[in-house]
């Protein structure tokens, strides 16, 4: 393990900022939100340095995916709270979800992801959206490989159900 004090957040941002932005963007599908997550991840490191970090890319990927999932879930919760007229306002024009059938599928996946538990959503995003191996996810999240596998299994089942329900509603 390497002491975190050896690395300044600005240096880490230069090295791994793109990695963090990509991880957040692929979960969120929105430039502004991904940028907010990216800044959030590095600013938090200024506020409170992690004690020890085995691998900065792994640590930062995990931080980015967790922050993105949290934001996704917060937005989902927010949609349940805010008045209709605010929700129905035009989306950010940079949002990829506004475009095409594929964009709609990605949007449906994100909506469903936001309904999973944080751990399940994060495991799913890291494994299937980021392509991280299960053993690596286990290290990143300080879980056993078995726990990661269980979370992935639950995530797949739940997402499958949510997406099928979504399709059925669309077909009605």
């Amino acid at each position, binding site marked *: 393990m390497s002491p975190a004090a050896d690395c300044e*957040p*600005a240096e880490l*941002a*230069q090295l791994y*900022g*793109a990695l963090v*932005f*990509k991880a957040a*963007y*692929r979960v969120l599908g*929105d*430039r*502004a*939100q*991904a*940028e*907010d*997550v*990216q*800044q*959030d991840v*590095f*600013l938090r490191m*200024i*506020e*409170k340095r992690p004690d020890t970090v085995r691998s900065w890319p792994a640590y930062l990927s995990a931080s980015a995916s967790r*922050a993105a999932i*949290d*934001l996704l*879930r*917060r*937005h989902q919760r*927010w949609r349940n709270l*805010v*008045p*209709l*007229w*605010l929700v*129905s*306002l*035009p989306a950010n024009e940079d949002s990829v979800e506004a475009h095409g059938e*594929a*964009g*709609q*599928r*990605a949007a*449906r*996946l994100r909506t469903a992801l936001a309904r999973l*538990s*944080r751990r399940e959503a994060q495991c799913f995003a890291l*494994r*299937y*959206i980021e392509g991280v191996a*299960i053993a690596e996810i286990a290290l990143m999240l300080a879980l056993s490989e078995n726990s990661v*596998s269980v979370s992935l299994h639950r995530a*797949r089942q739940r*997402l*499958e159900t949510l*997406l*099928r329900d979504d399709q059925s509603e669309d077909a009605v």
Partner: protein
Amino acid sequence: MNQRHEHELSPLLAEHVAAVEPVPSEALNAAQDRLQLRLRAARPKPGTRYPLRWAAAAMLALVVSTALVLPLFSDSGAAFAAARHHFRNFKTLSMRIEQRMDGALLQTTQVLINDQGQVRTDVDAQLSIIVDPLRGDLLTLLHDSKQAMRMPLPVAVPVRGGTNTPGLEWLDEVRNFQGRAKRLDQPRLIDGHEASGWKLDIGGSSFVLWIDQQGLPLAMEQQAGGSLELLYQFEFDAVIAAQVWTTDAPPGYTLVEGGPDQD
């Protein structure tokens, strides 16, 4: 033999995952530039919080505020100068917003903003949302069930130059807005004051802003698409009690920790 591997995605899931888009390189580069600027400007003071453009909570306030103020800067003539002054220099701004569909009232919202960037939104008598960018807190109150939920706002704020005033970053965007306003022929009486109407089309929505003879904005109408209409009434610099802005749960409310964020 057709059984899938343990960790293989079903066709339905695989189709949805495959739809997740690649990252646009220009967005990546721009984000990197802004990140470096932001980190350079950041001071490592524990506990310091910053408002965030796309924080879920602030979104409510900013959408309302931006929708409200955009028309004021769309005309460079003297007619809007006084109105601009009011919107730039208020200590408090109170907005009553009626949402109407085909003329029928759907919902009434009260939005309060102060010069510290604190925003309180009350939706009918059911829901209140208080955003305090100084504390970095968002408080949601569900009045029927007497529940309170508090969550932190994310800490980042994009650097785009300009005021850098917590909670008022939208002013920078507004200043760059270009557009045209058309003065309506017929004035209108609002609470006994004669007001002139200025019509603007912005982002597919039609706005009419009503300003009195001293340049005080009194009201605004927004056609928000279809038969949805938003009617705003403004009051500037009313005295508002400090407790209105607090993000502490009020007495009698149960604090719901974390909500669905908990695993």
